[in-house]
C-alpha cells in the first residue's frame, strides 16, 4: 500500500521554504522637484509666538554721543578766572 505520509511531508517542507523566500521589492519612483521650482516655506507650529518688542531709546547715549546736542545744552561757561598762583606748584 502506498502511504500518503511522505507526500504530505514533502509538501509541508516546500510550503515552509516558499514562505521564507525574499520578497521582491518593486522600485518606487519618487517625485522630484523641478529645478527652479520655488518651494514655499511652511509655517511650523510653535508653542507660543514671541511678543513684538520695541526697545526704549537710551537717552543718555543719544545725547552724549551727539556733539551738537552737547554744545547746545551745555551749561553756560563761567568766565575763566586766571590763577593767582605764582611759581612751580
Amino acid at each position, binding site marked *: 500500500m502506498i502511504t500518503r505520509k511522505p507526500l504530505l511531508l514533502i509538501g509541508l517542507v516546500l510550503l515552509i521554504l516558499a514562505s521564507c523566500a525574499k520578497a521582491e521589492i518593486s522600485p518606487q519612483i519618487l517625485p522630484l522637484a523641478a529645478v527652479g521650482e520655488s518651494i514655499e516655506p511652511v509655517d511650523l507650529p510653535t508653542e507660543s509666538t514671541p511678543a513684538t518688542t520695541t526697545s*526704549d531709546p537710551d537717552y543718555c547715549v543719544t545725547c552724549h554721543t551727539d556733539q551738537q546736542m552737547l554744545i547746545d545744552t551745555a551749561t553756560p561757561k563761567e568766565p575763566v*578766572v586766571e590763577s593767582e598762583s605764582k611759581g612751580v606748584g
Partner: protein
Amino acid sequence: MAPLEPWEKVLVNFDKFGGTVHGQMQCTVCHGGVQASDKETAHSGLIARPSEDPITGCGKCHPDTTAVYPNSLHATQQGYWTALAARSVPENYPKLEVMFDNHCARCHTTCGDCHVSQPASVGGGLLNGHVFEETPPMTRTCTACHGSRVGDEYLGKHEDIPGDVHFREERMNCADCHTSHELHGQPENCDACHKEPEAANALPAAEHRYAGVQFPRCETCHASATTGQDGIEQHQVHGADLSCQVCHSVTYTSCDGCHVAISETTGNPYFETQATYATCLMGRNPLKTYQRPYDFVPVRHVPISPTSYQYYGDDLLPNFDALPTWMYATPHNIQRTTPQTESCNACHGNPALFLTPDKVTSGELEANLKVIVEEIPELIPEP
C-alpha cells in the same frame, strides 16, 4: 594739554565704548539719573563721579582693589599729614585741616580719575570716549598731576637736561615700574590682601611713599648691578651704601618757600613759591632701614617754610625742625653716565656734590642735621 571744552569732556564714543564690558551696562547703573529726553530730568540724581564711592560702584567687580584703595596714598594723601603732624601739634590740626581742604585735597583721586577721565584736579574730561583704560595714558593722568618735578624731569622738559633714559631709550610708561599694586595701595605681598577683601581692608594706611618695602626698585630689572655680575667695579664697591640715584641722577628741581592763601578778590585759593632752582646734591640717608640701607641719597629741597600756612594762623608749624627741608629724593632723570660716574674723585673729595652745611640756610640747619654731610668722602689717590 589745552583745557577741554565742556562738551568735549563728556562726549562718549559709543562705537568704541559700546563694545567694551563696561559699555554693556545701562549708564544709569553707575551714574544714577533717569532715562528722559530733557537734560534737567535726565540729570536729576546724577552721580557724575561714581567712583567717589569705589566700594559700591567699582567694588562689585573689582573687590580686591577697592578694598585697599581707600588706604592708598592716591586716596588719602597721607604723606601730607605725616609731614604736617610731625611739624605741628594736635591743637593746630583744625586750622591745618581747613588749609588742607582748600589747597591740597583736590589732588585726591578716584578710580575714574585715572581710568576713565583726566583727574579732576587738572580739569577732568573723558580720556577716550568713556572707554576704561586699564593702563592710563601717562601724560594725561600721571604727569598731569606729578608734572612740575617728576614729569618734567622724566620727559626731559628742562633745557639742557636730558629726559630719563627709561623714557628716551625705551619710552617706558610710569606704570612699567609703578605697578597697579603700588598705585592702588596694595602691598606686593599678595597674600596680605588676596585672602579676602575684608582682611585687605584692615591693612594699615601707608604713611608716605618711602615707607616699608622699597618698590619699585631698580634691581628688579638690573639685578646684575647689585650682584656684581655686570663687571662694573663701582657697583661692587658701592652696591649697598649708595642708592642708585646717587650716581645715576643728573640735575633736578628744588623749591623754596611755598605760601598759601585765599584771594581777597576772587575768593579762590592760591599759592606762591618763592624760588625754584636746579640742584644735584647728596645727603646722608635720614630713612636708613633694612629696606633702604644707603649711607647717601639724593636730597631735594621741598617748598615748606615755617610760615607756609601763616594765612590760617600764627605758628602752625611749631616743630618745624622735626623733619628735614632737604628730603630724601628719587629723581626721575636717570642716565647711564653722569658727571658722578666719570671717576672715583668725581664724588670723593668733591664738596660740590654734597649737602654741606654752607649750602643750608641758617634757619634750617637744625631741621637738616640728619641729612647734612659734615665730612665728605676722602679723595682717592690716583694710581
